[in-house]
């Protein structure tokens, strides 16, 4: 855990000093040399840990369509339904020309260690490569939630109150769609994912 914070601290510092580079007007670029879209989440420099314990940043997912939701594994109320919503989307979308990655970001990084996320994935039959579980520091989690316009608060040692929003990002990282609520009609969301992954 300590090393994760260390790595993230460095990234933070780099993010702050790194902005001086754009002083000369050189906008940030993607790996392919394209300018990063102003709405792209690749602009987040935070580092994340996967269910397999690997470190990654959002930019590492360039070229994939992302479907993201925020949950916590000890959740008994809304999250199982959110997880079901994600599985429904995955099933309806099926195979696509551009790979689609389904991401579940923990709002309880303290409890949700990579081991725990891995176990959760297994229990919910979400062990395929299209499923990605992420955790980071509290600070990075709040920042990501703010990008998704997700609000959350710890309301007891074990429980969180949180918004139920699933967001779709295109292959350049720009948010193109949001689905709000539990078990709502997901046709538009499926359509948005299909359009983005064409």
């Amino acid at each position, binding site marked *: 855990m300590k090393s994760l914070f260390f790595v993230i601290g460095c990234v933070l510092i780099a993010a702050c000093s790194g*902005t*001086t580079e754009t002083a000369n007007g050189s906008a940030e670029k993607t790996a392919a040399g394209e300018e990063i879209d102003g709405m792209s*989440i690749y602009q987040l420099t935070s580092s994340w840990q996967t269910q397999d314990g690997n470190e990654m940043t959002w930019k590492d997912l360039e070229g994939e369509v992302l479907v993201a939701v925020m949950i916590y594994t000890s959740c008994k109320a809304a999250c199982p339904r959110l997880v079901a919503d994600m599985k429904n989307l995955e099933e309806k979308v099926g195979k696509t020309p551009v790979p689609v990655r389904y991401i579940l970001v923990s709002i309880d990084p303290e409890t949700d260690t990579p081991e725990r996320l891995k176990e959760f994935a297994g229990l919910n039959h979400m062990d395929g490569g299209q499923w990605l579980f992420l955790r980071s520091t509290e600070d990075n989690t*709040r920042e990501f*939630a*703010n990008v998704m316009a997700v609000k959350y*608060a710890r*309301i007891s040692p074990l429980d969180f*109150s*949180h918004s139920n929003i699933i967001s779709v990002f295109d292959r350049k990282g720009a948010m193109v769609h949001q689905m709000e609520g539990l078990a709502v009609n997901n046709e538009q969301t499926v359509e948005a994912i299909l359009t983005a992954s064409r």
Partner: protein
Amino acid sequence: MQTPVFIFFSALLLGMTQGTVKNGMSRVEGGRYVPMYGAGKNEMVTVASFEMDRLPVTNADFMAFVKQFPRWKKSAAPRLFADAGYLKNWTEDLSFPPSLSEAPVTNVSWFAAKAYCECQDKRLPTTHEWEFAAMAGYQHRDERRDSLFSARILAAYETPKTYLKPVGQSRPNYWGLYNLNELVWEWTSDFGSVMMSGENRNADARDLFCGAGSLNATDLMNYAAFMRYAFRSSIQARFTINNLGFRCAR
């Protein structure tokens, strides 16, 4: 005997804070308090000691930041991190009407405010810290039950266009902090933990406004706080608003 001595020292302390430079930070001694929202009903919250900017960040301050970090220029800030109204009262990337120089910077997003604080090795205060610091009146750490204190805050909330006024022109509070409740609303690091809608399962504030019975001091105190929490719950991190600024903590 103790009271006159206390008053004497308070007066001395007050004189000192008012006489010295207003810039810089004040130390806020930690403690326990019951916030209006964000903990269980009547549940105490512990706030550790921290430092807080005495003044809201001004347009002049923010200009210095933008010069150093051009990524946050009006024309350059990524839309993901600030909506189209970002710094809309500035005339250009590096200019604003001179009268705004010492006025609090507003129309800044949470992301911009966070970046500003981090780039000076500071951070945004948490909501609990902000509310803890702002419950202090001129004399005491917690004057929320004083109806004059609450009335003063509500009067300030009712005054239009206070975001155009220079910072530090009024009396500082017990901690030496200026303008917490007078000129603009302020971002907190975890404003996104305030949910006053259907999705909030422990809705503390649910029974606050049933009926318009006579208001006592507690209602007034809750009303001012309720406005702040309701505001926090209604905004998003990209939003830029004319009367929303910030200050940093450490």
